[in-house]
């Protein structure tokens, strides 16, 4: 009788668990053995005994103190095959999400299950592009799984930002970005679009930006806001200041003259969402696959079964079934809706 994938890849305590290898995927609670797809906090956590991840992800986890001295970390480059024990082979394929992000490929008794983690298909100059890995079961997220989510090219969104700066030359753009991935992707894309003034950064964005630079990324000149006196309000006019999203409309941003609250996020596509977050300049910028890419990817993997972890599960499940692909949603604990962006 054929092997049932659910016999060797199970959901245990709300997390994916590879039974023969006794290993969890992106567990939210401390475990002995964990495969980590990428460094975002809703996937990488501290306190694990052993960790398998890409070199970049391990570095990111160290920078964020997710890996302590007690944790034994194994770095695997993309496509480097590794015996995970119990007859399971693990290797990573790039996911195109952020620096070092990977799909975890598990092989066991001739079957292949790909846990894609978070992924995107849109071009991103700060990480390796997504790679399609044919498999028996494809585990996907569904953060932006509705037909209304069709992410525009980031270049067009950057144009929008530059247009605003030209129309309101005295304003300061306060751009809310996540410290890991979004910040660097936006800076790089702005550079490629010809923006050549220095960026001003909030302290929380520094270490990961430096880490990206260690991996060969070049963001041109950037300075720390904290290096300048508070009274120096005018310095930032007609410049872009980057900070974590929570600081955009908070006390921190009072130091800037004529601030325009901005955000780079996939949710910015929905007007009411942008308004709700009191953003005046929303750049639609997502590190996740949009509706068409989700469906295209599931098809391209030729998977006989798709498991959907989190997001708009219902819609993706329905659409894949319409395409003749068996799909089912798994409601993972800890993977809250809208955790991603």
């Amino acid at each position, binding site marked *: 009788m054929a092997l049932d994938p659910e016999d060797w890849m199970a959901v245990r305590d709300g997390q994916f668990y590879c039974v023969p290898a006794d290993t969890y995927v992106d567990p939210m609670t401390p475990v002995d053995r964990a495969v980590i797809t990428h460094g975002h906090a809703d996937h990488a956590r501290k306190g694990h005994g052993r960790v398998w991840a890409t070199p970049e992800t391990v570095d990111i986890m160290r920078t964020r103190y997710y890996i302590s001295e007690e944790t034994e970390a194994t770095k695997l480059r993309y496509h480097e095959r590794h015996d995970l024990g119990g007859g399971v082979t693990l290797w990573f394929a790039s996911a195109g999400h952020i620096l070092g992000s990977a799909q975890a490929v598990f092989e066991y008794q001739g079957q292949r299950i790909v846990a894609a983690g978070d992924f995107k298909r849109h071009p991103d100059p700060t990480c390796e592009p997504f790679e399609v890995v044919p498999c028996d079961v494809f585990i996907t997220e569904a953060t932006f799984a*509705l*037909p*209304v*989510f*069709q992410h*525009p090219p980031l270049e*067009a969104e950057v144009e*929008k930002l530059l*247009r*605003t700066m030209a*129309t*309101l030359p005295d*304003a300061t753009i306060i751009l809310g970005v996540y410290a890991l991935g979004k910040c660097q992707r936006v800076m790089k894309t702005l550079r490629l679009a010809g923006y050549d003034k220095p960026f001003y950064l909030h302290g929380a964005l520094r270490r990961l930006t430096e880490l990206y630079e260690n991996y060969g990324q070049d963001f041109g000149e950037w300075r720390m806001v904290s290096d300048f006196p508070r009274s120096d309000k005018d310095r930032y006019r007609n410049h872009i200041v980057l900070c974590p999203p929570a600081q955009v*409309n908070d006390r921190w941003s009072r130091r800037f003259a004529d601030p325009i609250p901005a955000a780079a996020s996939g949710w910015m*596509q*929905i*007007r*009411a969402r*942008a*308004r*709700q977050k*009191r*953003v*005046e*300049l*929303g750049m639609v910028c997502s590190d996740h696959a949009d509706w068409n890419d989700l469906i295209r990817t599931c098809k391209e993997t030729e998977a006989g079964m798709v498991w959907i972890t989190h997001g*708009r599960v*219902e*819609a993706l499940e*329905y*659409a894949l079934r*319409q395409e003749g692909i068996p799909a089912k949603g798994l409601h993972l604990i800890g993977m809250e809706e809208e955790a991603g962006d």
Partner: protein
Amino acid sequence: MSFADFSDLLDDLYFTNSNLSKQAIFADYLRRTPDPDRGWALAAIGGTLSFDLFKRNLVKSLMEERMDPYLFQLSRHYVGEMSETVALAWPQSEEPTRLNRLPDLHEVIEEFKVRDRAGIRDYLIRLLDNMSPPQRWALLKLGTRGLRIGMSARTVKKTLADMAGVDVGVVEELWHGLSPPYESLFAWIDGQADMPDISNVLTYSPVMLSHPIDEDKDLGGLAPDTHAAEWKWDGIRVQVAGMGGEARIYSRTGDDISHSFPDLAATVNWDAVIDGELLVRPANESGEREIGSFNDLQQRLGKKKPSAKLMRDKPAHLIAYDIISEDGVSFRDQTLDERRERLTAFIEKRNPDYYSLSDRLDWSTVDDLRELREEAAASEGLKEGLMIKRRDSVYVAGRPKHAWYKWKREPFLLDAVLMYAQRGTGKRSSYYSDYTFGLWGEKNGEETLLPIGKAYFGFTDEELAQLDKWIRNHKVARYGPVQEVDKELVFEVAFDSAHVSPRHKSGYALRFPRISRIRWDKPAHEADRIPALEALVGK
């Protein structure tokens, strides 16, 4: 200029909060965009487009044809609104007609205007196929005249006034005499032509408004030889204008509402502009006609074509307050007393079924005024209070200081229960500062709270902080930005009047509601019931 520029403009305006920035963005667009595109953009944003380019139903049926209904429903539910859902999820035609460039805004408008039904459908599909989501949104909102980008008519006029280097009042006087695409207006703004002449156009003239009286500061300065008192009637303020056999009735905001009051419009056989209060005159039990309440009037508001029976039962009537011009001569520079003489002479010649003169009230001391105000309060909602006007005041558009005062009767009070809260804007963006409250009432045989209104002022900053904290500790459920709370907190709500409103679950709407006290001490079950409101509505 391409439709894309118009769409960019809407996007920029939509997301910008500050009025000054909005003005800067809009002025920049108007300066760099040629006629007639800028005029059509002005019409779209100023809300003066007089026709739909296509119907909402067409958009809906196009989506039904090309998208899985279940996915459309999920999407629409998530987005919360149809136009935006369509803009984002529009599935391209299988073999779309590719346009090398998007047409100009005026080309889009003209094209829709000349096409028949099938043609409109084809053209809409072609445009949607060639547009980005924000452009589609702009088209759908423009086409069905549902544009709401948070730019008030006043801000629009202020933008134009600043461009022309004149006071906003100048633009206000011109505004209703001009029509899209406003070429004469822009020629004047650009310095290429004189100010447009609207003296031969039957149009709305900006009205003069009053300030609420400050009882401590203002009462002392009143005397019968400098100030005249009149009733403040509870109808709607209108302007009845006639010229060359044409008649118009305008609301205070300049909307043409003549179609709702053809009985009154038919009496206009003169050239003049009269400022007054529109009411109805139903018959009482003994068959005599007398001025009706706002609720009587309400049945005639918003009616596109009132029935003959309705007009017989509730005939329109104008109580005249002022005269702005007659036979082409403006009286704006004359004093109130001088205008009053002209008005009296004018109204004497009119049919008293349709026109009467607002009474000048007899008074000599402030105490007399207080008594008159009490009388208004006892008028069962007919009179909202008093108007006290300087007798030498000239008629200026807007709200000049110390010219006209309104002294409203004391507000009504009810104890209502807080039901939902929403965050405010600007300085209050981190506080729950908009409150929806309800009264107890019966629905399907069960005692439940029925929302009666919403208020976002009447409390101090300190109270706001306390309320915000209370709400955060009493959350029940969330509907988008709306936070439902435990039904435990009682507000004493003040309001000027209450009206029958089928749009509200409770069947009533409050006018000018505000929080007068927070009743931390009062248990929710002791709050007022709907019948208490019914009693206030009047006859």
